[in-house]
């Protein structure tokens, strides 16, 4: 038996497709913009406060840049996982184990990105000031609402992915009822 697809399904598929595309673009734009800031202004530009005349080595600059780049890279990876999940929705497969798995990967990467963003300022300044004379080394601790919200959101998405996995099991069960 063939029947026309409900309008709501068509809309949801279209929105999912658009959102997947946005996620893909953002997944590359976000790390690229952070890399551009790092290349232009140096790792110290990623954290508030100003350096007190340090002269870090090239290796220290590279490592600090890496520490500053990690959150953006992980956020980009989370967006790619979000895209994978949205692609499943765009195909009209609402309750699939694939979507649940992609959502869980996204949650894990979101939490990792937020955790990296929390420790990045500390790591950056520790690395940059490692070569400074004793008494001039810096220990910066930055706790902002952004990274904390990222951890909370990541945990919430993780829970939703567990619910999605359960929904996928139920959908598979339901498909065996004629």
């Amino acid at each position: 038996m063939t029947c026309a697809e409900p309008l709501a399904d068509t809309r949801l598929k279209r929105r999912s497709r658009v959102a997947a595309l946005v996620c893909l673009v953002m997944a590359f734009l976000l790390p690229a913009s952070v890399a551009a800031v790092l290349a232009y202004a140096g790792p110290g530009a990623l954290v508030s406060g100003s350096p007190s005349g340090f002269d870090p080595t090239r290796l220290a600059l590279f490592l600090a840049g890496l520490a500053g780049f990690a959150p953006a890279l992980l956020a980009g990876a989370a967006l790619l996982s979000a895209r994978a999940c949205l692609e499943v929705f765009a195909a009209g497969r609402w309750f699939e184990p694939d979507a649940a798995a992609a959502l869980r990967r996204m949650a894990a990467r979101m939490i990792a990105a937020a955790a990296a963003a929390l420790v990045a300022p500390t790591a950056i300044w520790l690395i940059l000031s490692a070569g400074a004379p004793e008494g001039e080394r810096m220990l910066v601790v930055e706790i902002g609402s952004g990274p904390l919200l990222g951890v909370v959101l990541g945990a919430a998405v993780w829970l939703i992915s567990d619910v999605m996995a359960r929904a996928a099991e139920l959908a598979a069960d339901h498909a065996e009822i004629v």
Partner: protein
Amino acid sequence: MGIVVTLDVMLARRKMRSRELAVEIGLTEANLSLLKQGRVKGVRFETLARLCAALDCQPGDLLHHAKDNADPADRARDV
């Protein structure tokens, strides 16, 4: 499972083809085939009502309960 589907028996009695029945009750042939083989986890009341209407029978003519250790094919033949 202890439920044996005897839809094929009823189809033979009514001299009806699976395809005709599938079209009449609005089920895909694939799903009807799975139902005939008893490879489904459940049947909706709605589907059962359509089957009964199409085959002019009662639910009991299509489904039987049998002990688990017996061969379902044998039981279907006994009906």
